[in-house]
């Protein structure tokens, strides 16, 4: 097992070094004429107003949390998924029981998923609501 992971380690080290190496080769070849106008932020020729480091929409944060929860769920399912086939083929009679265990696990989280869906939390545009009285 360590042999395979050693290869991965070497790969990661090379991966980290590759970009600086390419840029270093490029440095010997490319021109370097900085000028203050050239280094301004590109906004199609307009002068850029203010910094772009401003407060961002909260939706992105909610999406990241949703991802994390579902990701943990999927990861917990992976070891079960690996042995699932063996349970189905060898242990006679236990197939449906194991299926029920897995289905229960997924089903519990699906309640939350359905709740979020019904309550409209997957809608990206939430601030613009249809106004009935006008």
């Amino acid at each position, binding site marked *: 097992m360590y042999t*395979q992971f050693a290869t991965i380690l070497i790969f990661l080290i090379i991966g980290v070094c590759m*970009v600086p190496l390419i840029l270093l080769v490029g440095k010997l070849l*490319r021109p370097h*004429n900085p000028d203050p106008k050239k*280094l301004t932020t*590109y906004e199609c020729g307009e002068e850029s107003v203010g910094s772009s480091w401003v407060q961002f929409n909260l939706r992105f944060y909610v999406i990241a949390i*949703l991802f994390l929860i579902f990701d943990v769920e*999927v990861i917990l*399912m992976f070891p079960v998924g690996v042995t699932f*086939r063996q349970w189905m083929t060898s242990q006679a009679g236990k197939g449906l029981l194991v299926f029920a265990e897995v289905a229960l696990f997924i089903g519990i989280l699906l309640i939350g998923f359905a709740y979020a869906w019904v309550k409209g939390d997957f809608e990206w545009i939430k601030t613009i609501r249809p106004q009935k009285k006008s």
Partner: protein
Amino acid sequence: MSLPEFLKDLFESWPLLGSIPLWLYSLACILGLLFLFLFPFAGIAVYLERKIAGDIQARIGPNVVGPYGILQWIADALKLLLKEDIIPAAADKKLFILSPMLIFLGGAAAYAVIPFAENVILANLNIGIFYLIAVTSMVALGLILGGWASNNKWSLLGGMRAAAQIVSFEIPVALCILTAVLVTGTLDMTQIIKNQSPYSWNIFHNPFMFIAACVYYIAALAEANRTPFDIPEADSELVSGYNTEYSGMRFAIFFLIEYAECFVICAVATTLFLGGWYLPFIDISGLALGLRIPIEAMVFMTKAVCLLFVMMWIRWTLPRYRVDQLMKLCWEVLVPFSFACLLGTAFWMALFKGKGIPELIYSLLGWGS
């Protein structure tokens, strides 16, 4: 067996090569993979993309450098190498430099577990496919950082959108991969292929697997920010989004990894669903290993490149989604579908004791599997 081990075994009796330690073989294989496969392949994929775009839009496409313009990608790479490297004065310099490194690391590291043929895989990890999901998740981090560090409104919008999109679509992708894992019962990339056969590809195992394969392909398109899901880098709205401020070689790395990732997606789809290196209905396992490996590699590449072609075809045919439509598609269509595929496949496995449609048919006809 992995490629470094295989090569070491092969050259064991040779006078000079036999005494080289294994890690040097690994190093050579990694460098070979990067310089002889990843970089040229990404370049040729760019050329193909432009040529296909030309054909679809009834124009010629690149045709000046070399016959049929086939050397265009070398000219492009050289041009990008000679371009001035600009870091905007307003940018956060350290993060600006860090971002392409992260993206390269995440995009390239996935190649360590792609099984091109038997024994032709860099690292035969027993968690192969899971490792692949883990390392590619680094790309999202690189994209946010790139968008943020540029201090450009378009870049920031692009980076944030890219991260949210990758993160959302990772759920259906992971669920579909899990569905395939359920059928094969292993995470090892080589073993996943070996558990299939020329007669029973995973995609035909049951109807849910077929849907899972389609959902995987669509979700993976979105994860790689390809049209029709290329909202983060929409040229006409965001001036190519997170890489607006990147120039020269740094931009080239973003571009390279985008195409490298496209190939990874196709290779994973081939491995998980399309029977990897197996030909349809032709069993070549009786051939000698030296003859089999090139054939297997060719079959694997053919399948992957066909999928890559479909990707390009889609890009030049379909218009772009809107952000809200995209998120709706992910959470209200793809995620429910992939959950349904997972449960459906699990139920099928429980019902038929793990047998798929081809095996059921063969046993009905009285053939040995």
